[in-house]
């Protein structure tokens, strides 16, 4: 094996080195200089993100266990930007709360380890690699959810998360073993050629699917979402809803469109029903929500339902629209969580009521929030509209008119609750509105990237065409 064929794992190797470097830095940095850890991690990860965009060859390693192509490479790049933005947005919170307890470094280590798990999941060429990646991406998040363990909710959130996660991964492993037992291989390539829809493969598929459904929080595997988002630190809620869900959706798409393609007649109706259930449940839950984190949790459940809309098609158009939508979703949600984070780390307020009159005191923040919510709601001309519109077109092109119509009904319901926040910010005066404050430079940069992402994706259409070209790899 050539040494430079390992370059195919560039993302993974770089990230792994960063983790090691941070560990070493932790050992040698004097105690009173721990805050430079944040800058260090940001610089490292910034470089990693930038390097990630250099072109990368296609191919596979270790006899097909690890594979990469341009689409995978592109999506890892998107995840990198997402995580980088997230780190920028979390810097203030870390500095304020976590450094005192000397817990800054673990935050980065655990987060990067989880991202590493995502990479492996995305690049997995067989089920074992996939399963280990799944565990690697989940476990650190549980530790992170418990990061503010001194808060009651944080501990509770971690307990709920780890137990649900354990159950989901157990079920998923069960499914994998069924698929193995019926096909005699764990390699995607082999399975793709031998897979037929017997009772047992169906079972295997359903159980395996549950594991990913948990990560994307599809109904009925969504229960943990709101409780965990609310209890966990905002950065982690943001990570779960943006990076973790985005990556899981991407992986689900890869698996459905390649390995599990022979079962399409099975997963098509399943996803159809789940899409509807997820959209309606998420929206109904979100409708009467007061806590911003819970609110975003439910809204992100509803968004997951929309993602399924593109998956259900199983076409190249579907692939492209899903990736495009997920990318937009990542930026929009990052912007929304960024504002929540900015306000919370400054004032500790997290309720919708506290946002009343925000436009008068902090017009810029409220404008960012408005853009983000419009994008999530799918109101033109922000990127989110195109995301939804393309998804609808993809579904309609397969003749799923009823599904599209019900999805539009859901967009309308969601419009209402996103408006509630906008009303609170722009039209209400508020009894004691959040006073004006200046965010730190990192936070500003983090919000700026998110907003730029939203605008670029919405107004610059060649990006979509690029994604469409890449998506040929999975069809």
């Amino acid at each position: 094996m050539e040494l430079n064929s390992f370059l195919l794992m560039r993302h993974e190797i770089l990230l792994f080195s960063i983790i090691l470097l941070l560990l070493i830095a932790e050992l040698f940095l004097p105690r009173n200089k721990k805050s430079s850890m944040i800058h260090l991690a940001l610089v490292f990860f910034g470089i990693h993100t930038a390097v990630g965009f250099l072109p990368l060859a296609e191919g596979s390693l270790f006899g097909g266990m690890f594979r990469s192509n341009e689409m995978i490479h592109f999506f890892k790049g998107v995840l990198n930007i997402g995580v980088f933005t997230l780190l920028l947005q979390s810097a203030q919170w870390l500095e304020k709360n976590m450094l005192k307890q000397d817990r800054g470094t673990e935050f980065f280590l655990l987060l990067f380890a989880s991202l590493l798990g995502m990479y492996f999941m995305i690049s997995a060429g067989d089920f074992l690699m996939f399963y280990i990646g799944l565990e690697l991406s989940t476990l650190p998040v549980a530790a992170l959810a418990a990061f503010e363990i001194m808060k009651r909710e944080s501990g509770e959130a971690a307990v709920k998360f780890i137990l649900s996660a354990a159950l989901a991964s157990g079920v998923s492993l069960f499914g994998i073993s069924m698929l193995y037992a019926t096909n005699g291989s764990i390699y995607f390539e082999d399975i793709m050629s031998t897979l037929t829809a017997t009772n047992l493969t169906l079972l295997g598929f359903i159980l395996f699917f549950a594991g990913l459904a948990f990560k994307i929080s599809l109904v009925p595997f969504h229960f943990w979402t709101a409780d965990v988002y609310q209890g966990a630190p905002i950065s982690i809620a943001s990570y779960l809803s943006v990076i973790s869900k985005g990556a899981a959706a991407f992986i689900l798409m890869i698996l459905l469109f390649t390995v599990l393609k022979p079962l399409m007649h099975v997963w098509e109706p399943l996803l159809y029903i789940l899409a509807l259930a997820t959209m309606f449940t998420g929206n109904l839950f979100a409708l009467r929500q007061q806590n911003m984190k819970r609110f975003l949790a439910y809204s992100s459940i509803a968004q997951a339902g929309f993602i399924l809309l593109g998956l259900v098609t199983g076409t190249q158009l579907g692939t492209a629209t899903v990736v495009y939508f997920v990318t937009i979703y990542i930026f929009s949600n990052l912007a929304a969580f960024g504002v929540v984070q900015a306000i919370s780390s400054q004032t500790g307020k997290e309720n919708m009521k506290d946002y009343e009159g925000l436009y008068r005191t902090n017009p810029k923040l409220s404008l960012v929030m408005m853009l983000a919510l419009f994008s999530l709601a799918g109101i033109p001309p922000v990127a989110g509209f195109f995301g939804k519109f393309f998804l609808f077109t993809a579904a309609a092109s397969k003749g799923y008119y009823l599904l599209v119509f019900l999805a539009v009904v859901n967009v309308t319901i969601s419009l209402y609750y996103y408006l509630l926040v906008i009303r609170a910010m722009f039209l209400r005066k508020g009894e004691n509105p959040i006073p004006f404050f200046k965010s730190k430079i990192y936070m500003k940069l983090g919000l700026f990237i998110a907003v730029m992402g939203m605008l670029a994706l919405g107004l610059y259409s060649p990006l979509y065409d690029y994604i469409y070209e890449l998506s040929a790899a999975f069809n």
Partner: protein
Amino acid sequence: MEVLLAFMIGTLYASGIYMILRRSLVKLIIGIILIGNGANLLIFLLGRIAKGSPPIIPGDSKVFIEAYSDPLPQALILTAIVISFGLQSFAIILVKRAHKVVKTDDLDEMNATDEFS
């Protein structure tokens, strides 16, 4: 024999689920461990069982001469056992810490959830 083994796996799963549905956190973890054991046995069983023929190549030959039991599920299970240990030990510590903060072992008291306005 397989029938009995399958029955045993079912028992492990059933008891695991039952324990998970209890209110005590400790029972919950025990439940997860039981399910993990069940899953491992299941993979083992599905790879077909054979007595007295470990997948070790005899000392003087380069390949297997006689029948041998399937090595791949064994490798799978080994991975699964180790990983689930990681998960379990973390869960145990977490429960311990959570207990300190929340001051209860009762899951039903961990229900900070939607507030209705």
